[in-house]
């Protein structure tokens, strides 16, 4: 039982970390701070605009694979 709990807690901690990044790239960079970030440019993109229409999506993809990989390791450790 205690082993189960540590497994679940490790999962919850990982989820919190990933969702924090998820929130920052989309809601903070893409919406709340979009005007400030737009002052910076990334090639021909305004940075805030880039996060909203490109960057956040790339980060989402990376986050899911990162989560899957880490959970794979946590799974292996608790078996």
């Amino acid at each position: 039982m205690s082993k189960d709990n540590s497994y679940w807690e490790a999962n919850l901690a990982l989820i919190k970390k990933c969702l924090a990044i998820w929130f920052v790239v989309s809601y903070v960079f893409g919406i709340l701070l979009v005007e400030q970030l737009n002052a910076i440019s990334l090639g021909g993109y305004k940075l805030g605009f880039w996060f909203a229409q490109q960057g956040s999506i790339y980060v989402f993809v990376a986050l899911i694979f990162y989560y899957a990989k880490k959970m794979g390791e946590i799974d292996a450790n608790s078996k």
Partner: protein
Amino acid sequence: MDLQALTFTFVGITFAIYIGIGLWSRTGSTKEFYVAGGGVPPVLNGMATAADWMSAASFISMAGLIAFLGYGGSVFLMGWTGGYVLLAMLLAPYLRKHGCFTVSEFISDRYYSKTARVVAVICLIIASVTYVIGQMKGIGVAFGRFLEVDYTDGLLIGMGIVFVYAVLGGMKGITYTQVAQYVIMIIAYTIPAIFISLQMTGNPIPQLGLGSTLADGSGTYLLDKLDQVVTGLGFAEYTTQFRLNMTNTFVYTLSLMIGTAGLPHVIMRFFTVPDMKAARESAGWALVFIAILYTTAPAVAAMARLNLIDTVHNTQVSELPGWVAKWETTGLLKYQDKNGDGKIQYVADKAKNEMTKVDRDIMVLANPEIAQLPNWIIALVAAGGLAAALSTAAGLLLAIASSVSHDLLKGVWHPEISESKELFYGRVSMAGAIALAGYLGYNPPDFAAGTVALAFGLAASSLFPAIMMGIFSRTMNKEGAIAGMLAGITVTLLYVFQHKGIMFVASTSFMGGMPNNWFLGIEPNAFGAVGAVVNFAVAFLVAKSTAKVPANIAKMVDNMHSAK
């Protein structure tokens, strides 16, 4: 070959593939019918999920929507992709671990209640039926425009194709045809985008082209040029125009993310993979395949907008290109030389604007012609649009059919029926769902216009919170879950209906659509997230003051929380 013959050939070949897969993947058990036997490899399931998810609206309408909304269109880009992060971390793996055939079945098991199951089925059916009407309309319209086949005939042909592979093959047939449909759809979407990006910026990758300088030697960045051109004509600046305001943008994005994660036809796809690990990876692959289209769309949007303005603004009426006349006959494009100077002025000021109608769907449909691409690409776009509509329709139809045969018939009314009987009724429900969807596609009811608000609103405000609490909380009981779902739906529907009319009959709107009555300036389509918050709050309050969950249910939750 002329365009018409090419289009018939392309569409004919793709339909033959779908029917072939349907015949090959006939099913013999309920497990194959509902969850494709539970052994679909994660990458293929990811591809099928992407096809299931990306509808006629994503394929045809989204880029056009962004073209006119600019930055404001980001709501859809982030909202419809960010939901997969929630799905991968909060729902899919645990539901796969629990092991069930339908979303409502999980709710019934976890909340030890047939009432909860029926509430979930009602939400699911309303969300899926409204959503499927749009797909059926898409199929009819695509046939009409590309093949010049009558709308009704187009609808019947589409229904016939889905009937073959969905009734015979169930989830198994649907999954493998969706894989084929994804491939067709993504080729059809990206090839024109690559050509256009190359023409305009010299960079073949649209995602990079959008951030590059124009190929005309001016050294100006494409987006800067677009901003200059649109503001010069009096429109809002492309890269900074907000959708209403910041609060609305925030809440709308959140509602679409939660709604995406809560849509049953998407969740269901993760019941088909072998285990938890496969479910997580599969969500990642699904988003990769979705992201290919979703990161291309903003490039298509900006380039098409610039191209369109360049082509028509200040052009002599007699020198307008051939595609203008062609799309004018479909009613999607209209112009009128109001000041009689023989030229077209395309400006924001309504009194002076001479492009009196530019339907947003034109941006994808006419894009290859605007960019003067060869006929075979135009034919490919037709096949891609049909693949997008068919794949989403099939996934939704399975969600509807399985909730009738598995949840209502087997789960609530006749638990004693045999597996072969259930499979038979599964096929009958599928046939019934196709007939119903076809009928509603032929006679779209008033509420069809509000599809998106209703489907996402219901999924976000009822299903997502109920499932999530079922997984993460050991103490959430049936009273809490049912009260939460009902409260979430009620708040969301009241808000949508009071502004848009009961079931979207405008005359019954009791507060009018006026923005000054909007709560915190949030538009009705964006209200699902507020409904979800109400759901969570009510569920916790009710659960605190009612009976504890039985020991076997706590054990079920513990099982979902363990690696083994």
